[in-house]
């Protein structure tokens, strides 16, 4: 998780660990839904590379 950017870490924490929806995550982070989805995808791409 340390290899992720701070925003990506927060998205992963809120979406996967705290169980918030993408909409709720966007509200907490004061970002748009599209931005949250983009960060989510980028975080997973990075995690995929780290886990490979």
């Amino acid at each position, binding site marked *: 998780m340390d290899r992720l950017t701070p925003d990506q870490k927060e998205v*992963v924490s809120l979406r*996967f660990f705290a*169980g918030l929806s993408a909409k709720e995550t966007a*509200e907490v982070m004061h970002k748009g839904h599209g931005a949250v989805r983009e960060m*989510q995808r980028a975080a*997973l791409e990075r995690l995929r590379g780290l886990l490979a």
Partner: protein
Amino acid sequence: MQRLRDCEGYLPEMAERHMKGFELILDECLDRIASGESIADVLASYPEQASSLEPLLRAAEVTLDAGRFEPSNAGMERARQKLAAARIARAAHTQSMVKPSIVDRLRRLRLPASTIATIAVLALTAVLLLRPAMETGEIPFQPPAEEPAVVDDTPGIDTPAEPHETDVPDVAEVTDETAGNPAEEVPETAPLLVPPDSDGSFVFYVSDQPNDIGDFEQLMVTVSRIELKPRDGGQWVEIVPEPMSIDLVQLQGTRATELWRGNLPEGEYDAVFLSIGTIQGTLASSGEEADVVLPSDRLHIQSPFTIAEGEDVDYVFDITVHRNGNGYLISPQATESGVGREIERIQLSEDPLGHPGPQPGKSGDAPGQQDSDPPLADKPGPGPGQTPRTRTIKRA
């Protein structure tokens, strides 16, 4: 060459649009996996994107497993408080954008008392002067009479009509505010209203994830309507539970009470919307009524499930309450909702507001009794040639 130049701007735009669609699909797949579906089932819905989706979903699954500890109440509380604080901040920002009224502006001027008195006297004088005129219909100060317009009656001369402005209707800017925001979705056509059936195979339960429910002696809610959204975008299904007050204090953890039972149209569903009718909470510490609010008109959970012939489905809608400033906020708990949840069936006693409890035959008659027998035990067995009904429990 010109067509090639035209493509130069078109292709990146296409790629960007394609990526945004993929991210929407990925988001939906993640919600489905978090609610217990397997990666194979999820990928089957998107065969064209499966090769791109699968590695990301595998990474998500590993991440979810790593975090699949029982999160501490403190951790979840912090996340919910962040959400509540963000909503309060947004509400305050919206409030500050509202233009102050004339009275508010005058108050802010902090005029001296003598000025206020002078203004009041002038206003009173104007009213007294105009009052007789208002009663008699006379106007004390009449403007000079206008000269009558000269009408040209000369025959044969057509005076062209003066051009006048036509009302050009404003073309409203159409914005699809529901795009990418499933919580705001509404059915495009009238939903199918499904009546309850005491022998139905679909059972809707309500439960409560304890967060700050411990602050309450009693937290009564009524559910006015439940809407189920089909995955294929077809006709929504609407079910209306019998009027019944539910005390969330009695439904903590795996304890759940049956709210509705019936038979739904077969198919795949991916979202449930719960409309709360009334909320009434009493604090344990003081016995006073608590200020409990909802985040929106409907509680929404993006939660896929399937209705198939001959299969029983128990669906749990988990609600939670947590502190929100000086009050409390009720919200859905997605991680504890859906099918395949371990539940301890509870029949709530008749509520003091006079609403009857569940009808006999649904889940036991005695109030406060724990229903330990599964409903199938009370149902007649299959007839000759009929397939036995089996209960499918989908693992979370």
